């Protein structure tokens, strides 16, 4: 009697109802996530602007026309307001919209390059600590604690002032300073993965450690890596802006957004828009990158929200 075949009775199983095709789930998650869409779109626009700044700019970012200085943007009233300079001109008569476009280039480039440097350092340390544990973990933790106890802005400013400021110096200083979050996240992600069966299986098969890390661990922590990478790029952009604002980041006459705010600081009583526009640009860029990062986290690992 126990051999009577089981009749399904047309009742779908739990798996059938709860698990639609993985692609469909991902799509629903992506398009249900407004933040991700907005962030990705805005970032794409800014990237395109940065790439094609040469073609879409109304003027030259370094061209000073002192007779046309401090023209307000078009939403202001006044005799000088002109469509030739939609966002007006700065104190040296340079077209503000053009400088804003070229500034996107600097922000994105510095943010991206510093993120790559810090990503390589942080991921290497984090994965090693998570994979090997024990002494390696202790050493990495020690380096991490030491790094965290150094005040980032202050050390960055001091170092840049001591060795002289340039784009390369700013990128390296930021990259060498902000790898902490990469290390923390990659460490805990690796710890979780390395205890799973497939890693033990690979070890039992005799795979070499570098091979296990590259082909078993890395693909499984890639989503965390992407999320931290976006957040750290945003962090680097904010820090660059702060350094430039304090006069020790990107140097004049380059059109860095932070520097543009600094140059207009003295004019806050008269031409506040000179501060408002580049500041808003930094805010929107960083917001877009953060929204993208948060969105990716929600889509790839919804259980890790909050």
């Amino acid at each position: 009697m126990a051999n009577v075949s089981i009749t399904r009775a047309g009742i779908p199983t739990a798996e059938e109802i709860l698990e639609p095709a993985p692609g469909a789930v991902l799509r629903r998650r992506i398009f249900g996530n407004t933040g991700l869409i907005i962030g990705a779109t805005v970032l794409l626009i800014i990237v395109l602007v940065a790439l094609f700044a040469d073609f879409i700019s109304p003027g030259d970012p370094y061209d000073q026309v002192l007779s046309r200085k401090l023209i307000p943007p078009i939403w202001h009233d006044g005799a000088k307001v002109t469509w030739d300079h939609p966002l007006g001109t700065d104190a040296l008569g340079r077209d503000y919209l053009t400088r804003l476009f070229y500034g996107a280039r600097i922000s994105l480039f510095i943010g991206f390059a510093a993120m790559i440097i810090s990503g390589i350092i942080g991921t290497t340390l984090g994965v090693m600590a998570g994979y090997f544990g024990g002494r390696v973990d202790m050493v990495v933790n020690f380096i991490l604690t030491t790094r965290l106890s150094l005040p980032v802005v202050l050390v960055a400013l001091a170092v840049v002032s001591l060795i002289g400021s340039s784009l390369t110096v700013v990128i390296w200083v930021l990259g060498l300073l902000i790898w902490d979050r990469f290390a923390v996240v990659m460490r805990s992600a690796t710890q979780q993965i390395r205890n799973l069966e497939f890693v033990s299986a690979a070890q039992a098969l005799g795979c070499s450690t570098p091979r296990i890390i590259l082909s078993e661990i890395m693909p499984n922590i890639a989503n965390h890596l992407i999320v931290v990478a976006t957040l750290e790029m945003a962090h680097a952009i904010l820090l660059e802006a702060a350094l430039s604002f304090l006069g020790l980041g990107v140097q004049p006459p380059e059109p860095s957004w932070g520097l543009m705010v600094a140059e207009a600081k003295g004019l806050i009583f008269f031409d506040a828009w000179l501060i408002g526009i580049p500041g808003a640009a930094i805010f929107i860029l960083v917001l877009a990158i953060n929204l993208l990062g948060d969105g990716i986290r929600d889509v790839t690992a919804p259980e890790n929200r909050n």
Partner: protein
Amino acid sequence: MLAYALKRLGIALLVALTVSIITFSMVYLPGDPAMALAPESASQEDIEHIRRVYGFDRPILVQYFDWLVNAVQGDFGHSHYLNEPAANVIFDRLPTTMLLGACAITFALLLSIPLGVLAAIRPNSIIDRIALTIAVVGQAMPTFWFALTMMLWFGITWRLLPITGTASWKNFIMPAVALGYYVTPGVMRLTRAGMLDVLASDYIRTARAKGLRPMRVLFKHALRNAILPVVSLAAVQFGFMLGGSIVIETIFAINGLGFLAWESIQRADLPMMQAIVLVLSVFYIALTLLADLLNAFLDPRIRVS
């Protein structure tokens, strides 16, 4: 508990030692420190003279230990520019920055903890959304721009608050908000996440099954557990804030440590820079040590074992 505290203290001392090495080595960042100190017109002899006077001709290790021993005794060298012991200048300016930091962290905690708790009690409600918006905006706002915008509106347009200086308590409102707002998102997210975790835990269900009233469940059983990690974070953030005060103090012309740091960097006053970095780092290390010990004390799983 004692073993834990001693171990933690040992690590803190090691970290402080490492930080001191990094700080000391800043002297050699520009290459030859004597050359960097000398005016451009200086002859080779002048440079050699500077080298001898400042002791750069001694072996590096000797220089380091000399510097470290002095620093431990509270002598952080002599400011080139102010011609005063760096320690004196620092301890003149420190109280202002501490006051600013205390105001800022108070503002941040008063805003973020209640919002985080409310957001966790009613996920996806209006309050949750407001909290999320504050967090997202706070993380993306450049501190200096936020400070300048506040200055423009509250100081210049509406003339509600003084723009610069430290004359009255009103002077601290905008700087504290600007500095505190930057750390609000982190604290709020952690409070919310911790609270959500705790509220879903078995012991909260037990507390409710006992018939305890919602407020008692929340304040006695949930908040204490959820707040433990927030204590550490708040301490860490306070340390970050002191470092970040350089931007705020520069904008609002507050004569504290951050402003001093910026001035020293402008004047290439290296002993002063080193002293400030060292003092802030050691302060941060002490703060995290204190937070860990406080955490251990509040959490019986660590305290009683």
